[in-house]
C-alpha cells in the first residue's frame, strides 16, 4: 500500500525500498496518520484552519528546499487559497536561508553561536491570510532555521495574534512533523535511486 512518502520519493510497489519500509509497518502507517491528522484531514479546524495548516506546511517545505514536498503542498494550497499562495510565493525569496543556526546560553558552546536575522512577515501575508497566519509563518521560520533561539516570547507572539494553547500545540507539531516528513522524502529519494546492486 503506497502512501505520500512513497509517491514523493519514487518508491514503486514491490521495489526494494517498498519492502524495507514494510518492515517498519507501524512507523509507515503512523507517519501517514500524522500527516492526515495534521494537514490532509484534520478533525478540529477551529484551532487551525485547513488553509493555515497547508500554508504552514508549504512554507516549511519551501524554506527547507524540499522541492517535491513543497510542490505537493503548493498544489493543495492553490486549490484552497490562491491569494495566500501568491503572498507566500512573493515572500519566499527574501525569507529563504540555511540552518540550523542560533545561539546557546552563554558558555562553552558560545563559540558555535551563529546569529541570523529574525524574519518579519511582509504586510501582504496578513492582508491575504490574516494576522494569525502571519504570526504562524514567522514562528515556522524561527523553528525551521533557528530552533535553538525559540523562546516563551515567540509563543507569546502567537497568543497575541489569536492562537490558543491547543492551537499552538497543533501548530508546533505541524511545523516539526514537516521537518521529519521532508527528511524521509529526501533520504528515501536518494536510497531509492541508488538501490543495492546485488
Amino acid at each position, binding site marked *: 500500500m503506497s502512501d505520500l512518502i512513497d509517491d514523493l520519493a519514487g518508491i514503486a510497489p514491490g521495489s526494494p525500498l517498498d519492502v524495507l519500509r514494510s518492515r517498519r509497518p507501524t512507523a509507515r502507517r503512523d507517519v501517514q496518520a500524522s500527516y492526515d491528522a495534521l494537514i490532509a484531514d484534520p478533525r478540529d479546524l477551529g484551532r487551525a484552519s485547513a488553509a493555515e495548516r497547508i500554508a504552514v506546511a508549504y512554507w516549511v517545505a519551501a524554506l527547507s528546499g524540499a522541492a517535491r514536498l513543497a510542490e505537493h503542498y503548493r498544489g493543495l494550497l492553490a486549490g484552497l487559497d490562491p491569494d495566500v499562495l501568491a503572498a507566500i510565493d512573493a515572500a519566499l525569496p527574501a525569507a529563504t536561508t540555511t540552518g540550523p543556526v542560533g545561539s546557546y546560553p552563554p558558555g562553552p558552546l558560545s563559540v558555535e553561536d551563529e546569529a541570523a536575522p529574525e524574519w518579519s512577515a511582509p504586510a501582504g501575508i496578513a492582508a491575504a491570510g490574516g494576522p494569525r497566519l502571519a504570526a504562524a509563518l514567522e514562528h515556522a521560520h524561527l523553528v525551521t532555521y533557528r530552533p535553538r533561539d525559540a523562546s516563551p516570547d515567540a509563543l507569546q507572539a502567537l497568543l497575541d495574534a489569536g492562537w490558543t494553547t491547543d492551537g499552538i500545540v497543533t501548530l508546533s507539531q505541524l511545523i516539526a*512533523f514537516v*521537518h521529519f516528513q521532508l527528511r524521509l522524502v529526501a533520504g528515501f529519494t536518494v536510497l531509492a535511486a541508488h538501490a543495492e546492486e546485488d
Partner: protein
Amino acid sequence: MTDQIVRYPGVVRPNAFTAERLGWRPWLEPKPVDDLTAEDRHALEGRDVTDPYFRVLVRDPIVLGARTRADIDIFTNDEGGLDRAERELAAAAASRTNGCLFCASVHARFAIEQSGRRDDVQRLLDEGIDAEQDERWTAIIEASAALTATPSFFGPAHVEALRAAGLDDQAIVDVIQSAGFFNWANRLMLSIGEPLPPRR
C-alpha cells in the same frame, strides 16, 4: 481561563551538552491529569501521564498517539536493520546538530547504555559532529547531520559510506528514520519549553 505562556525567571539554563540527566519544563500549560479524557489516555499509552511534555502534547491527542507509535517502531522494531545503540547515535547526532541539549542528553545516555562506548559518545557531545570516530560511527553521524541540515544535503556519497561501513539498506532506512524523527522531536522540545540543569 485566558491562555497564557509559562515563564521561569531566574533559573540558569544548561549551557553545554551532557549525558547527565537534564530536566525539561514546558512554556505551555500541560493538560491537568484530572481533565484527561479516555481518548487522551489512549493517546498517552506507553508514556508517563505525569510527564509535562506529553501532557502538553496530549492537547492534540490524535497526533500524539500517531507520533508515539511511529517513534517506538522507528527505535525499537528489531526485525533486521540497525542495532538500537546506533539508532540512538543517529538521534544524538541530529540533536547535537540542531542544538537540542535535552534531546542530546537523553539519547547520548541511551547510546552509551546500549553500546558501552561512553568516551566516543561524550566526544560527539563535547566536540560535535566532526569529532573523530571510527569509520562506522563517522558514516552514521555524517549521514544524520547531512539529513538534519536545512536544506538537507544527504546524498549518494552518504549511502556509499554507510554501505562501506557495513550497513545494509534496512539499516540505512533506520538511520534516515531515526535522524529524521529527531528533526521532529528536537523542534518540539526546543520550541515549547526549556531544559533544566542536571538533577544531582
